[in-house]
């Protein structure tokens, strides 16, 4: 059948099971928008193209399907760059469709022309420039295949205006992907499995390092079985949160820069690290020279380029985590680990006493309290928390105890402020039955708060908790520790967020007391529509513990001892 490029685009997206796209129209993509009328796909109109990419990203992370963002050429396309880079570093499968000037005008600096395939080359898994309608179907199929297979990632498809307008024969079956060089399906050989099993059998003090790859691979149950059968405790990366329930007795919690001190000590004391779908990011290793000095390392990872990149490993099992664990599971047996687990228990020491949750109420509202109360109220529901980047993100990771995969969505690798609000919109669209909470700082919120209008226009029930400390908190914390409290450019003069929410037609309220937190959360949950809560928290609060950048993992800045703190107060 003969169709225009624009019609082919939407039909291909439908066949790739796309139900929603997030986009913003403009000149070079107008033919595609014109053809949207006849498509079953629902278009979510965003307020900025960066928002569209974060929404597609949130959609992919919450629902596991490829997210799609659409923009026009030039500024529309360049506005996507931050969202694409975010998806790249967190292996999130999104497809970005951009309009491009007519193929005859390419290279002429035409109005709104940008070489977006050139711009996004290093931040996409792959990208395409389509100049003929006849290339479109195969390209879209390839884009989805590349985005979702292997180690997922963003793919950009730039389509010239004339490729959208001209017609050609459309045959979905004939337009199969042709990717002779693309082999996402690697698997380890028998010898590598043997070496890994030998190390596992010999280990006395092993730890599993659980990463995002577990959730991407869908290997949650396999990791749990592996840990339970072998009795090996599990430390999580930020993006690995949810891979094993927080309530599981073998779950140690988050490791790294803001992990609990005893989790990091456990890693430093280990004699074997089993890295499952994680990439030894500098935020989890600290100083590489002193990282887990006595441990052998087994790295299970789908991307061969990650092997020996940061940490030299003894055995690399390159392949899909779930398949690798299926191979390993029949050969591992239960071992008494009580000595090792008791040792880890001792490492906890007085950590519980230092924990802010266990300190008496001193009349101040702390972000940790807000997040812990939010968890207590929403823990039994199908809740997705979407965070931004900074102090509140770390407090969320510490004090919201995630029991389910895909229940925390956060920008880990790129650390993109402004991510939370749009990503939450994508998450809500992907899983409308879930309760979605945005946990966002007052700084990051103002980067993308224009998407409040998208929430209202799409009538989405998204709850927004602004953790408002009047500072760019994490930067202020670094200034406190490493720049002699020279608070340059970190205090924020904020608008009245309650009035702002009201202006958008979003019910909004402010909370200043700890006793008001739970009623506010309950009010938001009862309210039949989006709600914004401005939590005015302690201004100069600090995320503890902390491994300074470049320090060894065990050299942590600990929480102040409550006894010392109390004495100082008096």
């Amino acid at each position: 059948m003969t169709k225009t490029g624009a019609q082919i685009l939407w039909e291909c997206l439908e066949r790739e099971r796309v139900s929603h796209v997030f986009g913003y129209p403009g000149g070079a993509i107008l033919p595609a928008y014109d053809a949207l009328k006849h498509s079953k796909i629902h278009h979510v109109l965003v307020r900025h193209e960066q928002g569209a990419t974060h929404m597609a990203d949130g959609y992919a992370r919450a629902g596991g399907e490829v997210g799609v963002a659409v923009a026009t050429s030039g500024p529309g396309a360049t506005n996507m760059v931050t969202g694409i880079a975010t998806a790249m570093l967190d292996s999130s499968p999104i497809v970005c469709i951009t309009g491009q000037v007519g193929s005859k005008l390419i290279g002429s600096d035409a109005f709104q022309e940008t070489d977006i395939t050139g711009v996004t080359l290093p931040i996409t898994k792959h990208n395409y420039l389509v100049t003929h309608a006849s290339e479109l179907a195969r390209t879209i199929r390839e884009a989805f295949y590349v985005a979702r297979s292997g180690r997922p990632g963003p793919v950009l498809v730039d389509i010239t205006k004339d490729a959208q307008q001209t017609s050609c024969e459309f045959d979905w079956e004939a337009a199969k992907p042709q990717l002779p060089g693309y082999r996402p399906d690697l698997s380890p050989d028998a010898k590598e499995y043997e070496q890994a099993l030998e190390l596992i059998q010999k280990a006395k003090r092993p730890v599993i390092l659980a990463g995002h790859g577990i959730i991407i691979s869908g290997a949650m149950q396999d990791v749990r079985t592996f840990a339970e059968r072998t009795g090996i405790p599990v430390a999580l990366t930020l993006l690995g949160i949810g891979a094993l329930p927080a309530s599981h007795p073998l779950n140690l919690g988050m490791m790294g820069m803001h992990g609990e001190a005893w989790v990091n000590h456990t890693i430093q004391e280990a004699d074997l690290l089993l890295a499952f779908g994680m990439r030894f990011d500098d935020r989890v290793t600290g100083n590489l020279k002193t990282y887990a000095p006595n441990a052998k390392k087994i790295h299970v990872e789908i991307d061969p380029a990650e092997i020996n990149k940061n940490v030299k490993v003894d055995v690399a099992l390159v392949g899909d985590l779930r398949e690798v664990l299926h191979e390993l599971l029949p050969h591992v047996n239960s071992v008494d680990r009580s000595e090792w687990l008791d040792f880890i228990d001792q490492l906890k020491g007085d950590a519980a006493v230092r924990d802010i949750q266990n300190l008496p109420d001193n009349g101040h509202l702390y972000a940790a309290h807000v997040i812990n109360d939010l968890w207590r109220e929403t823990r039994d529901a199908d809740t997705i928390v979407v965070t931004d980047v900074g102090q509140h993100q770390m407090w969320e990771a510490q004090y919201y105890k995630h029991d389910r995969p895909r229940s925390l969505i956060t920008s880990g690798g790129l650390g993109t402020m402004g991510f939370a609000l749009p990503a939450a919109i994508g998450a809500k669209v992907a899983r409308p039955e879930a309760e979605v909470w945005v946990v966002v700082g007052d700084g990051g919120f103002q980067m993308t708060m224009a998407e409040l209008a998208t929430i209202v226009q799409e009538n989405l029930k998204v709850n927004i908790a602004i953790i408002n400390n009047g500072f760019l908190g994490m930067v202020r914390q670094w200034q406190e520790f490493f720049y002699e409290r020279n608070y340059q450019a970190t205090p924020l003069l904020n608008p009245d967020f309650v009035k702002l929410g009201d202006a958008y037609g979003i019910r909004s309220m402010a909370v200043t007391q700890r006793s008001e937190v739970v009623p506010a959360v309950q009010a938001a949950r009862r309210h039949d529509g989006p709600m914004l809560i401005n939590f005015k928290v302690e201004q100069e609060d600090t995320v503890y513990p902390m491994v300074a950048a470049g320090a060894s993992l065990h050299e942590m800045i600990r929480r102040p001892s409550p006894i010392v703190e109390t004495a100082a107060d008096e």
Partner: protein
Amino acid sequence: MMNTFVVYVENKPGVLTRVASLFRRRAFNIDSLTVGRTEKPEVSRMTITADADRDQARRIEANLYKLVNVLLVENITNQPAIVRDLAMIKVAATHEARSHVLELASVFRARVVDVAPDSLTIEITGAEDKIDGLLEVLRPYGVLEMVRTGIVAMRRGSKSPGVASAASNFGQIASDDDVSYSV
């Protein structure tokens, strides 16, 4: 140490940029890069040399494989291989020096490809050190201009196993039917 990679890529626009950009992004320095056609019109072949230790070389290889348009990567640094560089050297050759230069060229089995009243242009093909050698002995006469192609390399013996598989991959259609959707 200097590593030599032979990289087979799809003959498509922009692939050279993707390969070059990869080296730049991962902070590996390309010493030389040559690209040209192969016996198959849809496949181009690159010879890339880069300074890297063993781990880095392995990561270069793995990162090249991640590029969707890359068909095959062979690190032939430690393989028996024929390695050739081509240079054209324009050397000042006045009346009295001319015979000396011609003599040197013939010792190196180089060819004179252009003669001008006060210069000779010599073409030489060979391993890099042979060209370096000729260059060194010509320098006293005055090298006016020089251009080198960078090396091309090929493994010795019958067709290397990788090439056969790269070629067989071509035309094979990747299927998206069996992709896990639990991304």
